[in-house]
């Protein structure tokens, strides 16, 4: 009689779309081949830019932030019919810049292999949806965070955490367009579910920046990476 039963899980195709709309990690078998290829190509570009910037001093930092991202996805915040988890791509991008591409790729690959979060074929798309907002936030808010004015810098840190999740949600909705889901409804679902996450991540990013500015101000002073 095994197999006769209905499991309410992501494996059940009946529920795939319902679940999908509320998650940041896009599952295997949801997207079409062209979207997967585009995602992979964009991810390769980002990763190669990131790898060029990588030097000996950066490697441990990338590894630590990669594991932070890896673990953050396991902290679930139950909201509505589903639950959402922390992403922390804002602080990742803020501290690493382009290097957050390789950092997030490694964490996502391990999540896919070990926990079946996302999947191997969607690795490219997932990397782009999470790393690109980090990079964008680095360029938009990076300078503001580095300002001497405490208020401006902390406000920028909050905005960085907040908008990185917002942008990720929008990118996931764009990727889901190909499944026939309308952009507006998908985006609405994802963004509504992630409003609390945006706020929480904003606060976490704010505290991280406040803390790091005290213990290692060079990290946010002058040209990025010329710290110590």
């Amino acid at each position, binding site marked *: *009689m095994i197999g006769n039963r209905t499991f309410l899980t992501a494996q059940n195709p009946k529920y795939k779309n319902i679940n999908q709309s509320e998650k940041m990690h896009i599952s295997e078998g949801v997207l079409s081949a062209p979207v997967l290829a585009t995602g992979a190509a964009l991810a390769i570009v980002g990763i190669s830019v990131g790898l060029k910037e990588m030097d*000996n001093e950066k490697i*441990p930092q990338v590894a*630590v932030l990669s594991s932070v991202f*890896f673990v953050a996805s396991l*902290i679930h915040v139950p909201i509505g*019919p589903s639950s959402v988890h922390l992403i922390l791509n804002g602080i990742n991008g803020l501290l690493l810049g382009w290097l957050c591409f390789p950092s997030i790729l490694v964490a996502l690959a391990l999540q896919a292999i070990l*926990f079946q979060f996302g999947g191997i074929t969607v690795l490219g798309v997932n990397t782009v949806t999470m790393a690109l907002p980090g990079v964008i936030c680095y360029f938009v808010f990076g300078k503001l965070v580095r300002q001497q004015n405490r208020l401006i810098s902390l406000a920028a840190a909050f905005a960085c955490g907040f908008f990185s999740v917002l942008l990720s949600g929008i990118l996931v909705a764009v990727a889901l367009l190909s499944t026939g889901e309308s952009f507006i409804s998908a985006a609405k679902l994802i963004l509504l579910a992630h409003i609390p996450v945006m706020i929480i991540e904003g606060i976490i990013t704010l505290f991280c920046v406040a803390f790091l500015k005290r*213990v290692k101000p060079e990290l946010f002073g002058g040209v990025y990476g010329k710290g110590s």
Partner: protein
Amino acid sequence: MEKGHKIQFYLIIIYFASVLVAFNNPPALAHKVMIFAWVEGDTVFTESKFSGGKRAINAQVLVYDRDGRQLLEGKTDKKGNFSFKIPKLTDLKIVLNAAMGHKAEWTVPESQIREAGGAAKGKNPVETIKHADVGLSKEEIKELIEESLDRKLRPIERMMAEQQFKGPSVTEIIGGIGYIFGLMGVAIYFKNRGKK
């Protein structure tokens, strides 16, 4: 250089703190809910749990027939259990409505109820076998085997269903972090070799 080590040290502290948050907060991890149902005689037993093993207490259970008509409803007890007499010989769709919109369902197919000798109208296979005189026909043997297999496999089936809802284990998480640091070592090795 001193400062460089310091920053990494602090980052590691932040990161271990987040690991602690992840594990010390089981209710936050309980994000999926499941219901499991099995038939014994004329009664359907259900068990409801959140992933991570927390029982779903006082949750609403609704039972529907094949056409989506509601047959009965009830609440789970302190152990997350709920049982009811089979009201009708049909596929039973059991829906669990836990708090915060958590929902799960389980379908008990009609064939299973029949086999368990449930509904009064259904032919009771157990009795048929009892009244069989000497030789058992092929069909009857098949039924017998299927019935006992079903009974024996039920706990295993349950375990599998439970397993499906378990989140990532601590070992896997630590393993993943280990991989990341291992990769870091490999990356540093190749970077350094290139320099010399």
